[in-house]
């Protein structure tokens, strides 16, 4: 299994509070991603990183920010949590195997409930 851990694994928080989720990898992979998974929507990309301090938005980035100060850590922050951000969050890592494609490996997920 790819060396990816996510913390916390479960969290319940109140609307309006800030929340930070952490993804830690031991594979030294360059690329890291945050996805959310919701019934009826599947997995959707929130933000991704293509190197230390290099990040960009995915398709559902509103209300989220990210930071990557070290290769091994990628943080996802909900500045002011809303009930619509209740979801399961997955981190993924990738290293370009061939010129064309990047195989991604996923962490175990964080289940976040915003009340």
């Amino acid at each position, binding site marked *: 299994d790819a060396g990816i851990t996510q913390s916390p694994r479960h969290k319940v928080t109140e609307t309006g509070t800030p929340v930070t989720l952490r993804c830690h990898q031991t594979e030294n992979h360059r*690329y890291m991603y945050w996805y959310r998974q919701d019934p*009826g929507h*599947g*997995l959707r990309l929130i933000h*991704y990183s293509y190197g230390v301090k290099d990040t960009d938005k*995915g398709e559902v980035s509103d209300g989220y920010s990210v930071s990557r100060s070290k290769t091994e850590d990628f943080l996802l922050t909900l500045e002011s949590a809303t009930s619509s951000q209740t979801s399961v969050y997955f981190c993924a890592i990738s290293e370009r195997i*061939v010129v064309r494609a*990047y195989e991604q490996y996923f962490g*175990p997920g964080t289940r976040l409930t915003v009340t």
Partner: protein
Amino acid sequence: EDQVTQSPEALRLQEGESSSLNCSYTVSGLRGLFWYRQDPGKGPEFLFTLYSAGEEKEKERLKATLTKKESFLHITAPKPEDSATYLCAVQAPNAGGTSYGKLTFGQGTILTVHP
């Protein structure tokens, strides 16, 4: 916009009853098509990458194939332990010609294999 549609949404099989899952896609400049398996409460587990039409890959009872418009995941003589959600995803370059590995996922097929 990249689109991925998986069918059927759910499939129930008897042990030993072979079948196929479908993944139809619309993308400009496919870099790769990926199949994942996801068990309840866990992160997606990487199965296969397919890069070009005509390519096939096998792993135990699973075989993935790719055409220019769709991919099939064939399951031969399934066992109850093959029960899971199977996810298909595509990777394509963004407008700037890079992709950094961003994936667009289908909503998955829930496979249940009864003994």
